[in-house]
Structure formats: C-alpha cells, structure tokens
C-alpha cells in the first residue's frame, strides 16, 4: 500500500475507503466553490505562471542544474498538497492512481457518490481538439461540470446510473484505455478517467517528466511463459511500453519496473497467459509507485 493508503485508506487502499467519496467530506472541505473555481479555467493550468514559472518548456526547465531540482520539488509539493490554503487554479492536491477494470467497476457500483455523469475529456479536448465522452465524474464535481457547456456531450445522456457508468468504463477498457482514479483535491475522490498517452495531462507529467501525478497500480503484470503463444496482442495494448516480443523466445517479455498494473494486457490476452500480482507481495517492487 502506498503512502496515501496509510493516510486516507482506513487500513485499506485509499480508493476503497467510502469516506473519501462522501458528501460530508466535500462539505467539510467546501469543495463546491473550490472545484467551480478550478474547472472554470482548468485549461489554463499549464500556461499560468505559478511562483513565476509556467509549464511552457517544462522539460528544459527541469533539466537545468539546481534550479531544475528546485522546480521538481515545488511541483511535487503542489501536486500532493494537503495544506489548508490550497489554490484551485494551480490544481493543488490533484493526482491519481492506475486501477484495473475490476476495481474501477467496484468503485462505480458501490462507492461513487451520486450523481454520476459522463462528459468530454478535458485533456483530449485541450491537447488534441477531440470531443470524446469518456470521463466519468461523480459527487460534487458532477454538479460543477454540468454548469460548463464545453464539457457537456451532445446527443447522449449526461447523468448515468451506476450500472451504465460501469458499462461505460468497460467499453473504454475495450478501446484500450487505462482506468485511473483521482483525488481532487486529496482526500476527496470524484473522478475515474480512461487515460491514454500522450493526450492525458496526468500521464504526460508522469511519463515524460517523471512527476507523480499518476501512481502505478497496486498490481503488476506477469506473463506465464508456458501459456504465452507469442500472438503479440498484449504488446499493442500497453500504453506504457512495458511489453515487447522476443522472436528468439517466441513469447512476450514484461518489464515489471515499467508496468503500471492497469491490466489491459491481461484483459486482451486470448490465452489467459497474463495475470496481475499484488505489488506489495513482491519485495523488489513493493513501495515502487
């Protein structure tokens, strides 16, 4: 279990703790106003100057000697901020974790606070200009997003029942997208996204700049060499470049240090050759999120 499970998991995983979804928590944190302020101008977050520095050319800024390390520390502190005076326009305390589809559905069917909505993914809209109904938001955030016309899908339902939302996530999984659950802000949970690189803003910071906006799942994938037939289906499903095919061995190899544990390869494998194992039970991967 990660640091956030220790703090907000009530003895289990942070995203399986019902308290983190509750209206009481949202009210205590005054989140209606906070999220409204955040979402009104969310697309500006990477352009806005924060402490005098914007994300424009972030890759170059992080590579600067000393200053780069200072910026990295400051950004990590902001992403994981639990301070009382968090700033909504900087998206303080907004980060998530990859989860396999069965856990995403479990959250949707049992834990997510009503109302549940589907809306256009902000990341794809701002980075690719693509209107794609794939984000599932719930709780206080639903009522906030419903006020913002640019995220409201045309010709389709906005509010979903639990079963419909779980089915929508399943459909995204079939398309090859990674389910991620999000604190916004920590410890309140109000979104399950279906992410992919490079369009997802969170995965961008993690994959390209090593910032912990998205944590690896509580699992990692392992391939059974006896069952793998070398069909390479899983290679195409991996968003993280963790799988490759060995022509000599005639089977795939999974790099557990690159694996985010989303389970897409397992879901795709026609031979049931891949399984997810708990990260905690492997002494070499434990704590490596």
């Amino acid at each position, binding site marked *: 279990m990660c640091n956030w499970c220790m703090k907000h998991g009530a003895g289990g995983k942070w995203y399986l703790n019902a308290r983190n979804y509750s209206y009481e928590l949202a009210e205590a944190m005054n989140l209606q106003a906070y999220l409204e302020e955040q979402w009104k101008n969310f697309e500006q977050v990477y352009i806005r100057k924060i402490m005098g520095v914007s994300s424009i050319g972030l890759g170059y800024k992080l*590579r600067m000697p000393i200053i780069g390390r200072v910026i990295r520390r400051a950004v990590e502190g902001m992403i994981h901020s639990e301070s009382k005076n968090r700033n909504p326009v900087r998206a303080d305390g907004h980060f998530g974790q990859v989860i396999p589809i069965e856990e995403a559905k479990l959250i949707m069917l049992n834990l997510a606070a009503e109302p549940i909505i589907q809306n256009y993914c902000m990341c794809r809209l701002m980075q690719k200009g693509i209107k794609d109904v794939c984000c599932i938001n719930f709780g206080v955030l639903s009522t906030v997003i419903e006020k913002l016309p640019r995220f409201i899908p045309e010709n389709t339902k906005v509010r979903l029942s639990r079963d419909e939302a779980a089915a929508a996530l399943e459909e995204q999984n079939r398309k090859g997208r990674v389910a991620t659950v999000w604190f916004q802000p920590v410890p309140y949970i109000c979104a399950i996204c279906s992410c992919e690189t490079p369009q997802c803003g969170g995965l961008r910071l993690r994959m390209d700049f090593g910032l912990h906006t998205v944590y690896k799942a509580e699992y990692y994938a392992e391939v059974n060499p006896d069952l793998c037939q070398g069909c390479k289906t899983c290679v195409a499903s991996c968003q993280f470049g963790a799988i490759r095919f060995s022509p000599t061995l005639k089977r795939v190899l999974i790099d557990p240090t690159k694996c985010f544990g989303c389970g897409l390869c397992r879901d795709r494998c026609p031979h049931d050759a891949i399984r997810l194992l708990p990260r905690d039970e492997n002494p070499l991967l434990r704590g490596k999120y």
Partner: protein
Amino acid sequence: MVKTKIVIDYSKCGNATGGIDPRQCGKCLQVCDPAVFIRHMAFNVKEDNPYDPQYWQITPVWLSLCTHCGKCVKACPQKAITVSF
C-alpha cells in the same frame, strides 16, 4: 542541448487578438503526435459568461517533446506557426 522554439503569430490565430477562433480550427492539435500544443481560454479578457468562455488561443507548451516533424507548420491554414531549433 538543442532547444525547440515554436512561435504562434497571435494576430492570425486566437480570437482575442484579432485572429481566427482556434475552436473552429485546431489543425495543429490534431496533427501533432506528441501533443505539444494546448488550446486554452485567453488570459486577461472580459468574458460575458465565465462558465462558457468565448475567447481562446493555442500555446505550444511541451516544447521539449517536439520531434521537429514540421506537420503543424504545413497544417496551419493561417501560416501562423514557425518552428526553430
């Protein structure tokens, strides 16, 4: 270290600065494989309804990920993008 510079001529692109509305175009967003550009609401403009902003512009943000493929320069109908490194 080679640093990529991408400059957008905001007199041609961005409806707050006299250019076209990037919500109607977005060609650079679509052709860019590493997704370097971000389309966002303009800063420092008066919006009638802050929940439904009407002034937008495009900023190249993830410059270090640019692969110098030149597709955005070719795709821009306004010829507003220049890339140098």
